[in-house]
C-alpha cells in the first residue's frame, strides 16, 4: 500500500509497471486508476461508438441490428461502470446497490412487456392487420 501521494504518482506513471499489480493497489482512501486504464477505457468507448454507428449502416434485419446496438451499448456501459466508476476495485456492496437498481428496472420493463395485451385499446387500428406504411410519391411502374 502506497504511503504517500508522491509515491503513488510515481508508481502509477512509471512505464514499466505491471498493470495488474497497481490495479489492486489502493491509495490511502480509494483506488487510483492508472493512466493506461483511463485512456484505454476512453479509447475503447470512442471506438465502440464508431462501431455502433457503422453497424447501423449494414442491414442485418431490424431485430439483429437492435440486438447489436444494445450489445455494444451494454459493453460500453460495463466499461464505464467497471473502470471509470471504479466498481471493479470498489466495495462489493456498491455493486450490489447498483445491480439492485438494474434488476428493479428490468422488472419494470419485463412486467410491462408481459401484459402488453392490456394496452391494445391504444391502437386505433386492428393490430393484426395494421394499415400499410405511409405512402409518399409512389413509383408509377414496377
Amino acid at each position: 500500500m502506497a504511503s504517500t501521494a508522491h509515491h503513488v504518482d510515481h508508481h502509477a506513471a512509471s512505464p514499466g509497471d505491471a498493470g495488474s499489480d497497481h490495479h489492486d493497489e489502493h491509495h490511502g482512501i480509494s483506488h487510483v486508476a492508472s493512466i493506461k486504464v483511463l485512456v484505454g477505457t476512453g479509447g475503447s468507448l470512442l471506438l465502440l461508438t464508431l462501431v455502433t454507428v457503422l453497424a447501423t449502416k449494414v442491414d442485418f434485419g431490424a431485430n439483429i441490428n437492435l440486438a447489436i446496438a444494445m450489445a455494444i451499448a451494454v459493453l460500453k456501459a460495463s466499461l464505464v461502470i467497471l473502470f471509470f466508476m471504479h466498481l471493479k476495485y470498489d466495495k462489493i456492496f456498491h455493486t450490489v446497490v447498483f445491480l439492485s437498481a438494474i434488476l428493479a428496472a428490468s422488472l419494470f420493463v419485463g412486467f410491462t412487456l408481459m401484459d402488453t395485451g392490456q394496452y391494445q385499446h391504444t391502437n386505433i387500428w386492428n393490430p393484426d392487420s395494421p394499415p400499410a406504411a405511409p405512402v409518399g410519391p409512389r413509383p408509377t411502374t414496377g
Partner: protein
Amino acid sequence: MSEQPHAPHEGGGHGHDAHGHDDHGHGHGHGSRFIQHHYDDAQHQFDSGKLGIWLFLAQEVLFFSALFVAYILYRHHHPEIYSYAHKYLDVKYGAINTAVLIFSSLTAAWAVRAAQLGQKKLLIGCIAVTIGCALTFLGIKYIEYSHKIHEHILFGRYFDPCVSSGGVPLLTKNNECAGHKSTVEWKDGAATAGCYQDIDQDLAMPGVQADCKVEEVRIELYKPASVAAGATHDCAKVPAAIARGTGATFTFTGTCDEVMVVGDGNTVRIDQAKKVAVKGQGNTVQANAVDSFAGDASTKRVIAKGISNPQPALAGVTDADVDGDKERSREVKRTPIAAQCSERAIGHAEGHEEGHESAKQTYPCWRVGFQPAVCGRKANKEQYGVIVEYGDHEERDHSYRIDAQCKPTPKVDAPADPLAEKVQPLKVGEKALSPYHRPTTHEEHELEAAGPPPEHTNMFFTIYFAMTGLHGIHVLVGVLVFLWLLIRAMKGHFTPDYFGPIDFAALYWHIVDLIWIFLFPLLYLIH
C-alpha cells in the same frame, strides 16, 4: 487507517494555502480541514459519501427506467413510428455528442486521479475540460432542438412537421412553414394556392387525430327552372323549379328538391319533393311524397306519403318560400377518397391561363385519419371540397371552406426496370430471370420517409424530448456541480485525503454518460 501518515493538505507540491484560520485537525490528526467532526477519519467520511452517491445513482437508474419503459412499450406497439421518425434525427449530432460525453467522462475520471494524487493543476485542467465538454454537448443539443422547433417536429399536438423524415415538403395544418413548402397564396383576398384547412383533427379534441372517412364532393350552384303552363318538368335535370300560371296543370317527375307554385286554381302533379311551396288561391297539389309543405288554407292536398296522414295545418307561405331567383346549390359528385393512394386527380385545369391546360391538378392523398388538407379548384361556379365522416359517424362538411389548390408534391422517379424491355432468350431447362424487383428494406424505408408521418408519430417526439430533455437537465446540473468544484479546486481544497466531492461528482457524471450511451442508439440509430 487514521494512523497512516497522511501528507498534509499543503502536500503534493503546492503549499499555498492562504487560509490563515485553517484549523485542521480537530483532534483527529487529519490533514484536511474538510473532515467533519462526526466522522472517525477521512476514510470514514469518504466511505459514507460514496455509499450515499451510489444510492443516489441507483435512484437515478430507476428514475430514468420509467422513461425507458415508456420507450420500449411504445416501440413494441408501434415499430413503424420509430423506423420513420428517427430519420428526423441527425446521427452526426448524436455521434458527436456521444464522443464529447465519453471524452468528458475520461477527463472526469482523470480529475479523480489527479485529486487523489494531489496534482492541483491537472485537477483544475481536467475539471475545466469536463465543463467545456458539457457545454459543447448542450450547445449541440441547442442546435438540434432549435431546428426541431423551427420545423415543428415537436411533442404531442405540436407535432406538425414541415417536411417528411425523408425531407419531402409536407402540407401542415396551419401552413406556418416558411420557405420550402407550399403555402397559401392570396390574390384579391382569396386563396389561390396552398392548403390552409385543418380538417384532419377533431377540433373538439385537440391532439387527437380522429379516425375518419373522407369523401370528395363537388357542389354546383344553379337557379330554379321555370315551368310553362301544361308542361312537364324533370327534376333529375334541375332539382328545383318554379311554376307560374292560372288554372293550368304542371307535372313534376323525379325527385325534386323544391317545387314552387305561384298563381290561382292550378293543378300540380308531383312525384316526390322535399319541399313544396304554393302561393295563391284554390290550387291543388297531388303528390306521392312530400317532406314539407307551405301554403295557405285554400290549397287542396292529395299526398300519398310523407306528411299526408295526418296532414298538418298549413303554416302559410312567405315570399322567401317561392323565391325563384335565388341560387341553390346541389351536390353533383361524391367520390370516396381511397384510404391509401399516392395521387389523385381532382379536375382539369380548363381555361387556366398558365399554359399547361392538359395537366391534371393533383393533391397528395393521405392516409385516412391524417388528412392534412384536401384542396380543390373553383371553376364555373363549381366548388370542390370534402366531406369528412368521423369514426363517431358524425359527418362534418368542409366543402365550402376549402377553395385553395395544392401544389403537387415532388415526384420520386421510379427506378428503371432493367429487365422489363429485354427479351430473354431461353434454352430448355433455364429459368427466366424475374423482372420483379423486390424492394429492399432500405428502399422501403426511403419510400416511407418520403411520405407523411404515420399516425401517432408525435409520440416518438414526446418520448424523445422527455428523455433527452431530462438527460439535458442532468448535464446542466453537472455543469453547475463542476463549476463549484472548479472554484474549490482553485482554492486548493482538494487533497489526497479529501477528494470525495470530485469522486462523487465524477460518478454522477459517468451515470449521465451511461444514460446517453443507451439513448444514442435507441433514438438515433434505429434501423
